């Protein structure tokens, strides 16, 4: 299975994401923000970082990069897409996911190993986890506060579209402790913490993050 990882100017975690794909058993394909060509990949990761310097709003300019036009179309017809951190911000700016990410309520950058609870294992990216499973993966953001209006939040909760929730204290002011959400179809997932940094016990706090990358390969194989 070929999983594309997009590099924008200012992306930081594209190499870690590509490595996580390979460690899970997939083939990683480097995609460039300026190419309106997805090279026929089976799934896509939008990595963390500071695309376009976070100018205007995080993800606002990346959303209109040439590579995003075919991505938005294919995501709407079922292509698995995982947006991590800045990638999550880009997915919200693209309106593939509802809500938005704003500056942390405590106004400080947060960087820590974060405990999460997986709440939905029916998405393309979380099928390998158990519902209620607790995992620990790194979290590092300055603008990671998930916000949406009450109706949207109720809808997300009612439809089971909160994918992961923060445990042991809310690190950034996200409404209802939301760490990640999915679209109705379950192919598009946005996650603020970083599973790609928790795939190797040498460098990560755990290997709990590998499941996101393994899940999508299994989901694709089952099609």
């Amino acid at each position: 299975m070929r999983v594309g990882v997009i590099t924008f100017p200012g992306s930081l975690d594209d190499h870690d994401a590509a490595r996580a794909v390979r460690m899970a058993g997939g083939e990683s394909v480097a995609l460039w923000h300026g190419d309106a060509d997805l090279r026929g990949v089976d799934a896509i990761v939008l990595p963390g970082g500071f695309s376009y310097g976070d100018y205007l709003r995080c993800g606002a300019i990346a959303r209109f990069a040439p590579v995003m036009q075919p991505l938005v179309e294919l995501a709407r017809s079922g292509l698995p897409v995982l947006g991590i951190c800045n990638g999550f911000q880009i997915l919200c700016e693209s309106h593939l996911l509802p809500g938005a990410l704003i500056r942390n309520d405590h106004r400080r950058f947060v960087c820590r190993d974060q405990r999460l609870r997986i709440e939905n294992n029916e998405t393309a990216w979380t099928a390998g986890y158990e519902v209620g499973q607790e995992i620990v993966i790194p979290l590092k953001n300055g603008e990671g506060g998930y916000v949406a209006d009450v109706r949207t939040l109720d809808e997300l909760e009612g439809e089971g579209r909160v994918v992961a929730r923060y445990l042991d204290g809310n690190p950034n002011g996200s409404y209802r402790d939301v760490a990640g959400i999915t679209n109705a179809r379950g192919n598009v997932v946005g996650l603020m913490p970083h599973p790609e940094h928790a795939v190797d016990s040498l460098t990560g706090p755990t290997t709990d993050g590998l499941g996101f990358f393994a899940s999508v390969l299994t989901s694709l194989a089952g099609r």
Partner: protein
Amino acid sequence: MTRVVVDVMLKSEILDPQGKAVHSALHRLGFDRVASVRQGKRFEIELDGDATPDAVAGIEQAAGTLLANPVIEDFTIHVEA
């Protein structure tokens, strides 16, 4: 050349951590009559030509597409004389 100004503000129900930081800094400086601060963005756009209804409508579309995120922000547009 005509100037069109787009002002973007976070919606009132969205927390504004930057505004809060500015507010507490003002208090530290002794500006204790300040009750609250919210921070926004101002875009000054020079039009190539007059601010015809069409041109202003184009800016309005640009504001709703890129300059503001309607999920969390409101915007206003005015043409400067």
